[in-house]
């Protein structure tokens, strides 16, 4: 049985009269210590999917199972790293970690906790910025801090919601390498949401495209069989990588076409009316 499982999950928003179905019959199995990338276009319901996985929102129907038990709410075991960092701006780097560590490991002694926090600060290479506050950090540093906070909770599942989408290309690749390094050091189950096929192919064990919303669903799996550690520079010339990237991209493009044609077909036709000319009426009166 899979470690993390979505079973026939449906989710929609709005009142019953004009309800928008965002996710439709989502089924996903993630094995223990597997790195899965969910890839989809913007607006396809990726973040909603992530919120459901994290327990922040509950599905309208269907189930989320973690290690065979149903997920009923959020918790530190489902470590979500938010798209927009969600750092507490009034706390320092160490303070942001401390509030999480204190809550998850209440029995940890003070000295031990300080050491533990420092370990995670070092892990994401924020050493030296312990007493800066989030507004004083750059985007990449904030994202790293967010990652450190999530990792420090020692979650069973790491949920990364477009963790790198707000960053520039260089910072992004640095952080990609860093996340892979950390994951390889300390293996755990990861579900990452992204809109970048290259990123997914570089990092994940398996790519799962989300069909464009509304009523998004997970259709196919693309296993990534590239050997680790993967070399970013060499990858571009790797035929396997290229074919995988083409396959995923084509699949996505086709889906997008399908979705568009579907949408066009559902357009309402306007009634065939001709505007009445009131001028003659006025002239008759005048």
């Amino acid at each position, binding site marked *: 049985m899979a470690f993390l499982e979505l079973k026939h999950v449906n989710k929609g928003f709005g009142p019953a009269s004009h309800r928008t179905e965002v996710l439709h019959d989502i089924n996903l199995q993630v094995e223990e210590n597997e790195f899965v990338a969910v890839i989809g276009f913007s607006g396809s319901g990726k973040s909603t999917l992530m919120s459901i996985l994290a327990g*922040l929102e509950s599905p309208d129907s269907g189930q989320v199972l973690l290690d065979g038990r149903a997920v009923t709410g*959020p918790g530190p075991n489902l*470590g*979500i790293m938010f798209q*927009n960092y969600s750092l*507490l701006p009034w706390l320092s780097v160490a303070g942001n970690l401390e509030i999480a560590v204190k*809550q998850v490991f209440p029995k940890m002694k003070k000295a031990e906790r300080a050491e533990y926090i420092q370990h995670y600060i070092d892990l994401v290479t924020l050493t030296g910025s312990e007493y800066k506050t989030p507004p004083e950090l750059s985007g990449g540093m904030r994202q790293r801090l967010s990652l450190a906070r999530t990792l420090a*909770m020692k979650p069973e599942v790491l949920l990364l919601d477009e963790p790198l989408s707000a960053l520039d290309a260089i910072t992004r690749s640095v952080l990609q390498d860093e996340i892979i390094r950390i994951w390889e050091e300390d293996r755990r189950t990861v579900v990452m949401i992204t809109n970048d096929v290259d990123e997914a192919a570089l990092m994940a064990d398996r790519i799962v495209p989300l069909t464009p919303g509304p009523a998004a669903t997970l259709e196919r799996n693309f296993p990534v069989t590239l050997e680790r550690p993967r070399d970013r520079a060499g990858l571009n010339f790797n035929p396997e990588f290229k074919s995988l990237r083409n396959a995923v991209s084509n699949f996505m493009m086709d889906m997008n076409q399908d979705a568009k044609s579907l949408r066009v077909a559902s357009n309402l036709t306007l009634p065939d009316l001709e505007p009445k000319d009131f001028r003659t009426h006025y002239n008759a009166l005048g």
Partner: protein
Amino acid sequence: MNPLLSKTKAALLKAVDLSALTFLEPVVRLAYGEEPAVQLRRIGRTILVPVIAVGIFLGAWSLIAGLIQTKAGTLPDPAATWTQGQAIWTGHVREGEKQTAYDLTGPRRERQLARVEARLEELTELDTQAREQVAAAEARKAEVLDETRTPLLAQIDRAKADIKKTKAERKEELKAAAVALEAGDRAAYDAYLVSLESGGETIEKMEEKLDALELKVDEAESRVYAPLIAAQKQATAIAEEIQHLNSMKDLLGDRNRGEKLTALDEKLEAQTAAFYDAQGEAVYSAANRIERTQRQITRTEEANYPMPYTLPWQVVRSIMCVFVGFILGTAVAVPIGVLCGLSPTIMAAMTPFIALFKPVSPIVWLPIMLIIVSGLVGDPDNNAFIQLLWELPLIGGFEINPAFLASAAVVALCSLWATLANTALGVASIDQDHINVARVLKLGFWSRLFKIVLPSALPLMFAGMRISLGVGWMVLIAAELLASSEGIGKFVIDMFNNGSSDSFAALFVVVFVVGIIGLFLDRIMIIFQRLVSFDGSVASI
């Protein structure tokens, strides 16, 4: 640049930024030689322009003040206001000196007494000189006046004589004409009446001229003679100092507490001796005498110099009152605001009260509060709580009474709304991301409140508190005025009732005192607001 220099520069710039005194920034930068041309231009805009504006204001004020006549003399101009401000301060300092003098004992008292007496001697001479100068100036003024007045008076006399003469002549003329009238000639009679009515014109003109001359004399008499005023001012200042030193002498001498106690101790000793010598019924009266003296000693030991209420003392009391009210109001507003922000239900329940009580004027609250506080406290001399307040160090000296408490309560009632509304807004508008963090961490209610909700609401809360303190300061003065609570408001109403031109100037002094203190209170709140804000977005002024 020298690392120490650049460090102090950074620290100074940070302090300037924190206190929102942004106009000082170019000064600091210029002092460190950074782009002098740019900084000078900025100083021109941020400092020179306001200074010029203030100069124009003072000039216009001086001009207009002379033109406005009131029952209490002309409107005080900037110079008169400044002088009055100094007089108020001197009065305060002198009262402080008297208080110290009353408590002084031993050799320090003697030294001080010697100093006072020496100065008094100096002043006696100065006083005579000043009086002489005044007399001389008066004489000179009379001379100057005579120079202009004598010819005018002569003219007046002549004009009066002329009028008298003309009137007499005309009377004779008319009488003669009357005699010449033929009886029954109605036309001639009418003509006579007309000539009587119209003939007065010449006399009227002459009288007008006379009035004009008399006006000139009045003007000359009321003309201000500057040297005399200056001499009088000096003489008054010396006389005031002499008066002050005389009462200092008293307070260092016979009226000094230590001296009084020594005298009483001697008396007691004598009475004790007499008591032991006494026999029969005399013992009773001797014992009574001892008892009376002992009571007198205790009273003297407890007595303090009866310091009158000076404006600086009243200002400090007002500031204390506004903070008591502000703290009371905040203590009520913050918890309610947090509850309103957390729960839309509580917000809905509170909305009618907020909407209803917020616009109520302090003038309506004050009588209600006075009645309530007086009802609770009753007689302040027999109330345990008030007595406890009087016993406290520092605060005890400010004689917290029902009027003070009522004023503070009114400040609280009128100022709490801004804090309440802003706290509710701050709590309600907490970032959803931060709530998600709390949910993921499974924080309990209290840690969610204290670790997530309150810190994130703090900047808005302080913005509300800043508005509250400003409102409270404005409300307080009206409340003190109505409650007769010793403070700035009481000073204002006293000066208004006094009605002399000095007290008119004192009111102008109060305008500036109140303004400057209000400014300082606002600055303090800005600094607090900056310290708690994490995104750096605070209003610039």
